[in-house]
């Protein structure tokens, strides 16, 4: 027995290390490469304005990939995804902004006013912080916190409502988005003065000073192309992993047939809630990154329009297909920019596209499959197999 073990250990060690390399290090490294390429090759090549569009495309992709976990894999219809996005945006922005306002950036030694106005682009270029500035790490932390808060809310909203079926879930999530929007308009005015901020007490934060209906502005713009696309890649890897895991199989089985899924031993409520929490958390993370792209965030971020936009990405891309929704998100985010003159008619074009898709490809661009399953190579392999089996 012990001899067997001794034989096993050396053979197991490299395989565990390989799994870790394959599972974590490789995706992170390639995400980093994508981020760096976007930052230093694509960004400069396409110019400042297209680069800012590329930032928003990245955010859209993240939203699409996250909603795909609920609407795509699990087949539950959530139409309040923007609510989680907005929660993440406000939490992340609040942490980043007030932390920056209350203190001097210890890494750069800049006064807060400077630190606020200097976006990541400048930090990257001024040569003081060759790799990452303190503010960028703070943004990451704030985004993770924002994601966690959104995930927690997802749990609270999901636990009671995911016992409901179909339409009811849609109504509950729609309500959640609207409630979030209304609550955000009720927040107190933003504090711009450092001394005023220092004079606040804990009770002043019961209703946080997040700018109310006018929105929350001057958020440090640390979310560079590098970070946004790094997280896009990480999220896609993550979503793919989830799809391949036993959790993913459970989610897909729920979509296919709830009764059969239960009779296979899948606790459907647990898995629905899990999908919902994951999606909410990722949306929150995306929201926080969005807040750091130099935007003024407004309560409307939680509104129906944004939720609907994301649903369209998922439906057009193919419910459940990661590559499909990524492609749909990219195309549909660039399209309004390309058709700038027609951008007011965007929703009409969306509606037409949806109708067209329903007629031509009712299961979405790729259905449940991934893009590579459509390569001629794989097709050939499949038909070969069919020939072999009588």
């Amino acid at each position, binding site marked *: 027995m012990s001899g067997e073990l001794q034989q096993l250990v050396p053979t197991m060690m490299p395989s565990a290390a390989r799994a870790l390399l394959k599972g974590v290090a490789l995706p992170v490294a390639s995400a980093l490469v994508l981020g760096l390429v976007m930052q230093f090759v694509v960004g400069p090549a396409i110019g400042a304005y297209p680069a800012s569009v590329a930032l928003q495309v990245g955010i859209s992709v993240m939203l699409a990939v996250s909603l795909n976990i609920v609407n795509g894999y699990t087949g539950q219809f959530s139409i309040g995804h923007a609510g989680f996005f907005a929660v993440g945006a406000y939490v992340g922005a609040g942490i980043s902004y007030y932390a920056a306002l209350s203190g001097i950036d210890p890494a750069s030694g800049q006064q807060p006013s400077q630190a606020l106005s200097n976006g990541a682009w400048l930090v990257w270029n001024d040569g003081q912080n060759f790799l990452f500035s303190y503010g960028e790490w703070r943004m990451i932390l704030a985004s993770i916190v924002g994601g966690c808060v959104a995930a927690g809310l997802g749990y609270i909203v999901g636990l009671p409502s995911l016992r409901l079926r179909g339409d009811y879930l849609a109504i509950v999530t729609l309500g959640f988005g609207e409630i979030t929007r209304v609550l955000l308009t009720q927040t107190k005015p933003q504090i711009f003065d450092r001394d005023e901020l220092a004079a606040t007490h804990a009770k002043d934060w019961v209703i946080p000073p997040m700018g109310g209906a006018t929105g929350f502005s001057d958020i440090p713009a640390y979310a560079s192309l590098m970070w946004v696309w790094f997280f896009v890649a990480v999220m896609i890897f993550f979503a793919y992993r989830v799809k391949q895991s036993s959790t993913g*199989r459970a989610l897909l089985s729920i979509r296919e047939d709830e009764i059969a899924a239960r009779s296979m031993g899948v606790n459907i409520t647990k898995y629905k809630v899990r999908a919902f929490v994951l999606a909410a958390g990722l949306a929150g993370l995306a929201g926080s990154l969005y807040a750091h792209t130099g935007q003024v965030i407004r309560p409307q971020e939680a509104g129906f329009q944004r939720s609907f936009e994301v649903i369209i990405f998922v439906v057009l891309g193919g419910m459940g297909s990661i590559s499909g929704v990524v492609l749909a998100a990219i195309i549909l985010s660039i399209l309004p920019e390309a058709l700038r003159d027609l951008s007011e008619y965007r929703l009409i074009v969306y509606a037409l596209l949806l109708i067209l898709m329903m007629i031509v490809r009712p299961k979405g661009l790729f259905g449940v499959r991934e893009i590579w399953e459509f390569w001629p190579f794989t097709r050939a392999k499949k038909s070969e197999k069919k020939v072999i089996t009588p």
Partner: protein
Amino acid sequence: MGENETILEVRDVSVRYGAIRAISNVSFSVKRGEILTLIGSNGAGKTTTLRAISGMVRCTGNVRFMDQEIAGTRPDVLVTRGLCHCPEGRGIFANMSVEENLNLGAFIRSDKHEIEKDKQRVFELFPRIKERLKQNAGTLSGGEQQMLAIGRALLARPKLLLLDEPSLGLAPQLVQTIFKIIREINAQGVSILLVEQNAHMALQVAHHAVVLEVGKVAMTGLASDLAKSDEVRKAYLGHG
């Protein structure tokens, strides 16, 4: 009732759908290692009884499985204890491949090696499933889908398998095959509770039978006895 004799005991089980009583005070028991069939006409409450046992619907009364009270236990918990319900209408995951369907059957298990063995067992029972592993389950024929559904249920390693209308919508020849396989599965040690419209076939393979009529147990007994009884012949077997 000795510990080794009875695997499932249903006592005074009633189910209501709103104001409608679907089944009332249904009682019977399944012995370890046997096939018990539940026959009856449309709307007699056969499927409801199965659902009550497997926790898909709420019920009153007692259900004991392997000497544990299970009434009200969630179906996914029951699967881990060895009670597997193969639902009516096959419940195939149509957009997933046959292989993925089978893997979901083993969802609650993590013993890869044993799962692989059980898969081979399933392939022996259903050679046609092996040929179609990579195919989308939705593209299978009705009979193949039924085979897949049963094979998938077997991968959960059930001690008691609840089969709901396995012959539904199948060609007569396929019905023969399915029933032959049900017998084989039973011979391998799995107790089976079989719900059937096809009373003729069901009474041939089962050891015991329960006849349900409008939500109540009308008759119980040895399957061979019931097959000979006049009432059953008249009502379910189509003999004057």
